[in-house]
C-alpha cells in the first residue's frame, strides 16, 4: 500500500478532490452540544468539517444501506402492471469514516454480496461508495469511553476496506491508499512523499492510542464459545431480557446489523413504491406473522436471538467475523446497560458460574 504525507491545512482539500471527481461527499460535523453527525458537504459548511470529534451515534452505515431505501415503483394503469426498479445513481464518498464503521461496511459486503443471492440495491450503492477512513488517536475525543475496537480487532487503524486512510501525525496527516481509486488521488500536489520519521511517528501514535482504551480486554472468544455451544443459561438470558426496554436503539446504531422490513406506500394515482426500512429484532412485532402467531414472544428470547446471531461460531464462520465491530454505540444508547460489552461480560460470568457447579 502506498502512503503520502499531507499538511494539516490541506487535509480538507481531499474533500474538494472528491467533489471534483463527481462524488457527493459526507463528512462529520459537530452540531448542537456534544452531538456529532455525518452530513453532506457543501461550499458553506466545508470549513466546519471536524475530524477530531466523537464518532456520530447515527452510523454512516446508512450511506451504503439507507435507513429507508426505495426498491421499485409499482404502477397499474390501462390494464398493465409494471414493477420498475429504482436504482440510486449517486456516487457517495464518506470522509472521516472511523475504522469500526469501515469494518461494519466490510461485514455488510460479505452479508449482502457474498451469499447465495446478491443484493442488487446494496451492490449498486456500494459500487459508487468511496471511503476515507480516519484513524482514531486522541483519547477522550476520538476514542470514547465505550469504544472497544481493540477487542473486536477492528481498530483503531483499519487494515483494509478503505480507499484512503488518514491519520493525524500532528501538523500533518499520513494518507494511505487502500485501492487504485485512492492511489489515484496522490497525483494531486497536496500529497508529498513521507520519511522514515513519519512512519515511526505513526507507529508511536498508534501504540499510544491502543493504550488509551478503557476496555482493552474482553471475553469475546469465551462468549462466542458459550453462545455457540448453547451453554448460556436461561437465567442469564432472562437477566439480559429483564433489562431490555425493547426500544430497538442498539440495532439502529449498529454498523453491522442487516435486518430490514419491506413495505409498499402510495406514491400517486395507481402508483405505489416499495421501500425497505431498517428493522429491529428487539421489537416484538419482528417475528409476528399474519394471524397473530409469534414464535418469539419473550423479550429474553429476542435478546438471545440478537446475540446468538452476532456471536455464534456458525455465523462467525459464514461471515468471517463476529457481527460486532467494537464501536460501542449500543453501550452508549442502551438504557438498560446491555450493550455488547456488558452482555459479553454477563455471558462469561454466567458460564463461569455454571462451570463452577460441574463436579470435578
Amino acid at each position, binding site marked *: 500500500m502506498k502512503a503520502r504525507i499531507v499538511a494539516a491545512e490541506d487535509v480538507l482539500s481531499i474533500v474538494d478532490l472528491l467533489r471534483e471527481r463527481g462524488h457527493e461527499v459526507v463528512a462529520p460535523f459537530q452540531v448542537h452540544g456534544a452531538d456529532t453527525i455525518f452530513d453532506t458537504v457543501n461550499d458553506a459548511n466545508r470549513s466546519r468539517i471536524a475530524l477530531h470529534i466523537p464518532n456520530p451515534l447515527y452510523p454512516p452505515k446508512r450511506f451504503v444501506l439507507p435507513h429507508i431505501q426505495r426498491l421499485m415503483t409499482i404502477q*397499474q394503469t390501462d390494464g398493465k402492471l409494471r414493477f420498475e426498479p429504482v436504482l440510486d445513481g449517486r456516487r457517495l464518498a464518506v470522509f472521516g469514516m472511523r475504522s469500526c464503521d469501515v469494518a461494519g461496511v466490510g461485514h455488510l459486503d460479505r452479508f449482502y454480496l457474498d451469499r447465495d*443471492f*446478491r443484493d442488487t440495491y446494496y451492490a449498486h450503492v456500494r459500487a459508487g461508495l468511496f471511503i476515507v477512513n480516519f484513524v482514531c488517536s486522541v483519547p477522550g475525543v476520538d476514542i470514547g469511553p465505550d469504544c472497544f475496537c481493540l477487542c473486536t480487532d477492528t481498530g483503531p487503524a483499519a487494515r483494509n476496506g478503505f480507499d484512503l486512510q488518514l491519520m493525524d501525525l500532528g501538523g500533518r496527516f499520513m494518507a494511505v491508499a487502500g485501492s487504485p481509486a485512492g492511489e489515484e488521488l496522490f497525483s494531486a500536489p497536496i500529497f508529498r512523499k513521507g520519511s522514515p520519521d513519519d512512519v515511526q511517528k505513526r507507529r508511536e501514535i498508534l501504540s499510544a492510542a491502543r493504550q488509551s482504551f478503557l476496555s482493552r480486554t474482553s471475553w469475546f472468544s469465551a462468549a462466542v464459545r458459550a453462545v455457540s455451544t448453547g451453554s448460556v443459561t436461561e437465567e442469564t438470558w432472562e437477566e439480559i431480557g429483564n433489562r431490555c426496554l425493547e426500544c430497538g436503539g442498539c440495532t439502529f446504531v449498529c454498523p453491522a446489523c442487516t435486518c*430490514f422490513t419491506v*413495505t*409498499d406506500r402510495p406514491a400517486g394515482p395507481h402508483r405505489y413504491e*416499495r421501500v425497505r426500512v431498517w428493522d429491529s429484532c428487539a421489537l416484538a412485532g*419482528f417475528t409476528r406473522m399474519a394471524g397473530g402467531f409469534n*414464535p418469539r414472544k419473550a423479550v429474553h428470547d429476542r435478546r438471545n436471538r440478537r446475540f*446468538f446471531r452476532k456471536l455464534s461460531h456458525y455465523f462467525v464462520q459464514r461471515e468471517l467475523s463476529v457481527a460486532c465491530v467494537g464501536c460501542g454505540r449500543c453501550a452508549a444508547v442502551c438504557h438498560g446497560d446491555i450493550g455488547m460489552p456488558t452482555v459479553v461480560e454477563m455471558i462469561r460470568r454466567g458460564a463461569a458460574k455454571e462451570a463452577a457447579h460441574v463436579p470435578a
Partner: protein
Amino acid sequence: MCRHDEENVYLPRVAVLERVRDEIPDVRSFYWRFADPADDAAFAGFRPGQFAQVSIVGAGEFPASLPPSPTESERFFTIRRVGSCTAAMHELRPGDLFGVRGPYGNGFPMDDYRGKNLVFVAGGIGIIPLRSCIVYAMHNRQHYGRVQVFYGARTPTELMYRSEMAEWCREKGVECHLTVDRADADWKGHVGVVGSLFKQPGIEVAAENSVAFVCGPPVMFRFVIKDLLSMGFSEDRIVSTLERYMKCGVGKCGHCCIGVAYVCVDGPVFTYEQIRKLGEDI
C-alpha cells in the same frame, strides 16, 4: 445453490389471475400464469415444498407455498384470508394482475425418498404445501412405496382438496384418512385429533423404511411428533416445512432466521432433528 448475479432478485414478474376456486371458508385457490410466458422458465422444475413471494398491488408482498406438483402444468396458490395482503388477494378477480417471484427455499428432497413409504400428516391448511409432495408421489408412483395421508380439520366444511383425495385413494397402495375435531350431522367419519387416526382399527403405520411429512398448527405438530417418535420414526425421517414472517425470501431481511438457519434459504423444509436443534417454537 445457484447464485443469481445479474438479475434483481427483488423484482416480481407480472402474473395474470385466470380463475379462482373456493376451497373452504376463507380459503381460495388462485390459478394463474405469467403475463410473459418467458418468465415461467424460473418456475419450470421447482421442487415440492418451495415457495414464492406474491405481490398484491397496494397491499404488499407475502410468502406463499406452492401447492401444485412440478409434474402439473397449472400454476396456482391456495391462500387463506388471514392478514392485509391475503385479504387483498381474495379481492382479485379473473383477469387481474399481480406479482410473483421465486421459487425459493430448499423444498422436500423427494429424490432421496425414492423407494420409501410416505406418510403425510396434515392439520388444517397444513395440507397446502403437502399437496405438492402427494401429487408428485402420485405422478411418480413407481418410485415410492405405500402412500398414506392423514388429514384433520376442525370441522367437515374445513376439509379441502376432498375430490382430489377421493381420486388419489383409487390408486393401489394409497390411503387417505380424514378426521375432524367437531362433527356435523352429515359426518360419518372419524372424530378426534389427527394423531388419534394412527391407532384406529384397520390402519397400520409402519415406521420402517418410511418418511413422515408433518405440517399443521403448532399444537398439532407437537402431538403428532410425539406419536411418530413413539411409533419408531427416527428424528431424521420426520420432515416438516416451517412458516415464518418473511420479507425478502432470499436470506437478507432477517425476519425468518431461527438459530443458525434462515428459513427462506436453508428451509423451509427441515427434518425434525434439525428443527429440535434450532430451538424455537414451531
